[in-house]
């Protein structure tokens, strides 16, 4: 009978101390310096891939060869060939922002309001001031997984191409591989 009373009391003791525990603190962290590494694509990977692409593009000076600089770029499709749901703007915007800031390029707007107003201004003035893009930026993010024993290597390949709209040639190609070794089953959401 005694044990029937004592046992629940002992079980309840941890609940009393629970209230004293300090909740895990939440602190600000620079995303690019985060110590958390997952097998998925994180913000550091996008930054690394974008950084690589911008450095290569600016060093190649392919953008400076247009007849009337700055070059106009249209961001085409960046295909997601990974098992994850990702927003490819995280990559594309970093690249276009850096290129635009360099003064070497201008990016065509995808804002429907801006496009509509521009067309209306052209219609009212009876002109056609639309400048066609000199280049398109397209790409692919590919995921490959290799397993060996209890370890697996997840590689993300960021393939980017700058295509000349006049010739339809790929005037620049970038390829960045980011590999991650994991000892846990590769499931990332």
């Amino acid at each position: 009978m005694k044990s029937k009373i004592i046992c629940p009391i002992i079980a309840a003791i941890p609940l009393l101390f629970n209230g004293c525990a300090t909740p895990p603190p939440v602190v600000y962290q620079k995303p690019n310096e985060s110590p958390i590494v997952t097998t998925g694509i994180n913000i550091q990977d996008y930054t690394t891939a974008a950084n690589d692409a911008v450095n290569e593009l600016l060093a190649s000076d392919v953008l400076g060869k247009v007849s009337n600089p700055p070059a106009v770029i249209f961001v085409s499709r960046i295909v997601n060939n990974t098992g994850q749901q990702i927003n490819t703007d995280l990559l594309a915007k970093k690249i276009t922002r850096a290129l635009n800031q360099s003064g070497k390029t201008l990016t065509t707007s995808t804002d429907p309001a801006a496009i509509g107003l521009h067309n209306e201004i052209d219609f009212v003035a009876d002109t056609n001031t639309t400048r066609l893009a000199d280049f398109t930026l397209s790409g692919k993010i590919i995921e490959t997984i290799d397993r060996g024993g209890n370890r697996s290597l997840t590689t993300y390949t960021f393939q980017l191409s700058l295509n000349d709209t006049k010739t339809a040639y790929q005037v620049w190609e970038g390829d960045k591989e980011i590999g991650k070794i994991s000892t846990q089953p590769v499931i990332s959401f």
Partner: protein
Amino acid sequence: MKTRILLPLGLAAGMAALSGCTTAKILQAPPLVDQRITVADPRVSTDASLNSMVSIMGVKTSMTPGGLLKVQVELQNRTTSLQEFIYRFEWFDAYGMEINNVITAPITDQIEAQEDKFISSVAPKPNCKDFRVKFITPN
């Protein structure tokens, strides 16, 4: 028949015995010591922890065809283990004002044991006249 077998054997044994007496000149390869010295460039900074393991071997600058400043830093891992680090390029205009974009974001990287590695970056704008590179150990 016996002489046919014994004669070559005897000669071979004699030659082998005498060869031990001759002094051969052995050319010794120079010791495998890296003669290069680390560079103390004020534009490159490393935290104490990383500095004890990874050396800055050189800093080179050039101009791209488009008139942008390009920087290349050579690193060397002196240890026998892989080292992780974060680096960040900071770019400044002629007035010393910092210019930020994706090129100036911190990048996580690693260097294999005893490896020599090059890290490069291109200035985000043509008006960038100076730079600084910071290397830190990840948290």
